[in-house]
């Protein structure tokens, strides 16, 4: 069974200003199935449609055309969100709360029964290494600590499907290694993981399959046996497949 299914999905952003409407293509006819238990990496330049695809899965956006399914249910579906964990590219957390209060909030929102909630919160704080800072407000956390708090809220309810939007962007090498370990641990537990990234080497190390997005279209789909034991396969495929759509030219320093 597919954990995620995009069926000819298009997303067009329309903006009106002073009577003039401009349209931007976020996704253009995306067709992609991700089976349960797979670790799938979405690669692409800025503006290629990675975050749009993730927001469609999470019900933050509605498709202009086509259908999106998560865990067999048509998105947006509030009930299915209880089985999905999501961490955005930055830790968009309410900084007035402490680490513990923040996790307690998301545990309650994820419908963890009250009797089990405190135990689960403590366990998760310990797992992400924030137990010692649990009573500090998030406004006092470093970037790395916030990233951990964000991962904790995504995993507190033990989701079947984990969606991580650029989880290694801006992290130090040690934190990147920890995220990699986390993804591999989720894989070992049979969870489905979808993550977007710019980092080809990370994708190469943990993914079963990758998809390359460019201009809202899926331009390349590769599986692990195509790059395992070979060097620069994904990088070459990426450079060949993508086109800049942000109007920026190449850097020429010769």
């Amino acid at each position: 069974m597919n954990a995620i299914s995009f069926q000819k999905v298009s997303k067009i952003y329309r903006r009106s200003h002073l009577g003039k409407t401009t349209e931007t293509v976020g996704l253009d006819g995306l067709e992609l199935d991700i089976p349960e238990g797979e670790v799938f990496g979405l690669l692409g330049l800025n503006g290629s449609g990675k975050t749009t695809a993730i927001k469609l899965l999470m019900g933050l956006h509605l498709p202009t055309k086509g259908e999106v399914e998560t865990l067999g249910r048509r998105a947006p579906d509030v009930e299915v969100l209880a089985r999905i964990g999501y961490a955005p590219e930055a830790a968009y957390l309410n900084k007035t709360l402490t680490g513990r209060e923040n996790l307690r909030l998301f545990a309650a929102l994820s419908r963890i029964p009250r009797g089990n909630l405190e135990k689960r919160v403590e366990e998760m704080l310990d797992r992400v290494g924030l137990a010692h800072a649990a009573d500090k407000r998030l406004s006092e956390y470093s970037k790395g600590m916030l990233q951990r708090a964000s991962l904790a809220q995504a995993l507190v309810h033990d989701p079947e499907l984990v969606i991580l939007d650029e989880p290694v962007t801006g992290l130090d090498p040690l934190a990147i290694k920890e995220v990699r370990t986390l993804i591999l641990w989720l894989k070992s537990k049979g969870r489905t993981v979808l993550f977007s990234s710019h980092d080809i080497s990370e994708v190469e190390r943990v993914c079963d399959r990758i998809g390359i997005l460019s201009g809202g279209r899926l331009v390349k789909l590769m599986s692990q046996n195509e790059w395992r034991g070979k060097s620069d396969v994904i990088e070459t495929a990426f450079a060949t497949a993508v086109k800049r759509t942000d109007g920026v030219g190449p850097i020429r320093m010769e």
Partner: protein
Amino acid sequence: MQTISAVFTYTFKEHVRHKAWLSSALFGFILLGGALVISALGADERPRLMLDLGLAGIEAITLVSIVFLTVNLILQEIESRAIYLILTHPVRRSDYLLGRFLGTLAAAALGMAIMAALHLVLLGLYGWWEPGRYLAALLCTLGKAGVMGSLALLLSLALTSEAAAMAFSVFFWMLGHFSSEMRFLADRSGSAFIKTAIVAFSHAAPDFAHFNYRDFWHATAPGAQWLMWAGVYAVAYAGACLALSVQLFEQKEF
């Protein structure tokens, strides 16, 4: 229910930690200044003037606070993107709005309680002690706060601009004190269209006459039935505004 309660709790904490209670300190200064002026007047007038000044101060500060807090309530969460993480959990948008609104109203009620305690101490020094009548006045102010808060929330979602929502809220707040005058104007109008428009407008705007305890404040205390109808009006008006807010909020993409 667990969702509403979780959103309510974090909203309440957020307001308390953002020092919404500082409005009570402002009220303390108003009382002190008022007491100095009143001390120059005749002894028999002092309790009445202190009572009127204090209740007017509580009402003004509460209404300004609730409008400011509710106008920013959702827009700031959208701006900080904290809303991404809330709505990607199994949270109905109606539950989220209700929890946010009730948490804000509770924070405003806490501020009112602190101000009322200060006020009652001072009134006690002047020899005035009628807690039943005082409580009736506070309930009327809370009813007004509920009505204005829900209207400000609706306007913030409809206009998506804090400044515009605040300006319109103040406009409706002023209009709410002239509902009988508007109906009188409608009766005098020769045009059926203008008459219908004014009547419709007077019903759409809040009618604060329902909370005007001062009409009989210095004669007899408002009866239980009068208070009940004020409560019914507040719940019905706030309910209608919240229902419309949910309709608007359901359409939003983030």
